[in-house]
């Protein structure tokens, strides 16, 4: 067991993947000479050479599509789209090619592609650089979507993602890169199940990614106040581990969903829909969600803070569903 940053954990996973399978290679903007915009891939070019750590031109649609082709051609590409913001430029290839290929070809072709991207706000980089589109990706049949929120998961989830014969997208919240955590030598995480990060009995707080630390902070505050909240980390955004969500909600009979996406159409809405479809009679109170305000994320710190979910807002929402 060692302590490492989320960034190092991801880099470790990448290094293991590159070392372990000659079909694996890394491709994206500035993953090589620059060392990765978030320094995740730093040192990998030196270690594995320019054939396997490929700097691409600025052309998201092109190199994501090339990753799809390379996967079809027998390689195991890991494509880094610098951030989710730029992934909109590549979305056509992800949706219309990667996700559809297998079904549309009658099962003949698989696309064993992994796409990694940083996501989320919180560093005052303003409206065009602060998006969270995990919800969109999580709605596309044919792909899997992961959101490791801990160093352990960052290290653990890449290998099974690469082993998966179909496209997998990994979201890394940029605010997590500097967070530290224990990482065991043996793999702990799979790419199927959600994780209870804090067991509790009174309310289920369902979240993922960059909101996990906020939810845990809120749970600590609530605990001090006598509220025993369970914190559930979805970890896999598609397919959702509905069984674990429902088990937690059935136990606590109340739930709050925390999601950095804009409120309307958020992944939180989908969680709520599933709960109300399947556990309606187990609920003692309306469901609630804490999401981002429906506004382009502003640069100014105080406005950005106000736009994003914060522990205080989570505490308030929990108290509200508890009728306190």
């Amino acid at each position, binding site marked *: 067991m060692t302590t490492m940053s989320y960034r190092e954990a991801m880099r470790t996973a990448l290094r293991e993947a590159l070392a372990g399978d000659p079909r694996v*290679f890394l491709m994206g903007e500035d993953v090589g000479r620059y060392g990765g915009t978030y320094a995740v891939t730093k040192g990998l070019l030196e270690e594995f050479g320019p*054939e396997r750590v490929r700097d*691409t*031109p600025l*052309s998201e*649609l*092109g*190199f*994501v*599509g*090339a*990753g*799809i*082709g*390379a*996967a*079809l*051609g*027998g*390689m195991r*590409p890991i494509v880094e789209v610098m951030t989710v913001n730029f992934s909109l430029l590549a979305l*056509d*290839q992800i949706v*219309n*090619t990667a996700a559809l*290929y*297998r*079904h*549309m*070809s*009658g*099962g*003949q*072709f*698989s696309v064993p592609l992994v796409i990694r991207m940083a996501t989320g706000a919180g560093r005052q980089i303003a409206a065009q650089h602060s998006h969270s589109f995990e919800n969109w990706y999580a709605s596309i*049949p*044919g792909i*899997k979507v992961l959101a490791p929120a801990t160093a352990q998961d960052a290290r653990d989830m890449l290998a099974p993602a690469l082993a*998966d*014969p*179909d496209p997998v997208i990994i979201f890394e919240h940029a605010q997590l890169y500097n967070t530290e955590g224990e990482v065991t030598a043996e793999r702990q995480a799979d790419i*199927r199940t959600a994780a209870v990060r804090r067991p509790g009995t009174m309310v289920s707080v369902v979240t993922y990614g960059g909101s996990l630390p906020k939810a845990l902070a809120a749970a600590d505050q609530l605990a001090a106040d006598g509220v025993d909240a369970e914190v559930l980390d979805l970890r896999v955004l598609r*397919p959702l581990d509905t069984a674990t969500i429902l088990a937690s909600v059935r136990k606590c009979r109340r739930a709050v969903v925390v999601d950095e996406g804009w409120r309307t159409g958020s992944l939180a809405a989908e969680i709520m829909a599933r709960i109300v479809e399947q556990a309606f009679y187990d609920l003692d109170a309306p469901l609630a969600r804490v999401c981002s305000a429906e506004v382009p994320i502003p640069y100014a710190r105080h406005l950005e803070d106000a736009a994003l979910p914060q522990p205080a807002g989570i505490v308030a929402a929990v108290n509200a569903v508890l009728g306190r």
Partner: protein
Amino acid sequence: MIAPPPAGPVPYEKDYALALLADMLRIRRMEEKCAQAYGEGKIRGFLHLYIGEEAVAAGAVRALKPEDNIVATYREHGHALVRGVTMNSIMAEMYGKREGCSRGRGGSMHLFDAGVRLYGGNAIVGGGLPVAVGLALAARMQDEARVTACFFGEGAMAEGAFHESINLAALWRLPVLFCCENNLYAMGTALDRSESQTDLCVKAASYGVQTLKVDGQDVVAVHEAAQEAARAVRAGGGPFFVEFQTYRFRAHSMFDAELYRAKSEVEEWKKRGPLHTFSARLKAEGKLTEEAFLALDHEANAEVERAVAFAEAGSWEPVEDLLLDVHSPEGRP
């Protein structure tokens, strides 16, 4: 200002020349039947006929080796057929039957066949280009001597996907054979309303890619150019761009009133039809008799009838299998 019909000697042995002719005939007859079946409601959705352009698929696809990859568009019946997808499975696909080459899920625009390395049929204009670049990258990284041929229309060249793909291919010197089927129109949009640079080879050359421009109605010219280009790619010379100048005789799809071009223009181009001009040349050289032509035509028609019978006799994928293949069995959630 339409050029005179293709003419001149055919530099091939009789058998080889007749095989090219037969391929064109097979495409033509198959598609004529498709149009008819569409009228009868047997085939539905979008149907983009290749009629008029057969020389391109016949001449270019035959220049490829079995280990080469093909990526095509929604107008890909000809490429699939020449590549070796059986007419049966193509027709069954268009009928939506489980025996179709894509299990009936794809239809006309999405013919796939892993066995002959046909990576589809793609209904997004330009969508196949980046995929072709990636296939070429995989070949290069695995030291496979594989050319990836990517077919696309001249209209696709206005898309960002074209630019990003050819730049990447040229930058990394990947073995991609860019096959532009310039049929002068993208739906109803004429080339000069779509590209500021109407010399498509100039455009491609600006990426540092080798180019060839060729009469796409002349199966000989097409075949020679494709062979030369494929050779250059295979030799490691990086990507190659070939512009096949061709014309579609039919509407863009079955929903096109053809308001954007004059009937007379179409008639003029029909004089340059790839089938009759090639037949005439072969006849002039004594490589083809009228009887031999009729025999080939009869064979093509017979194949079409068999394909229709096969498609008619095909089965429907059970509705319970709707979700099959959304994920691979090993990856099924």
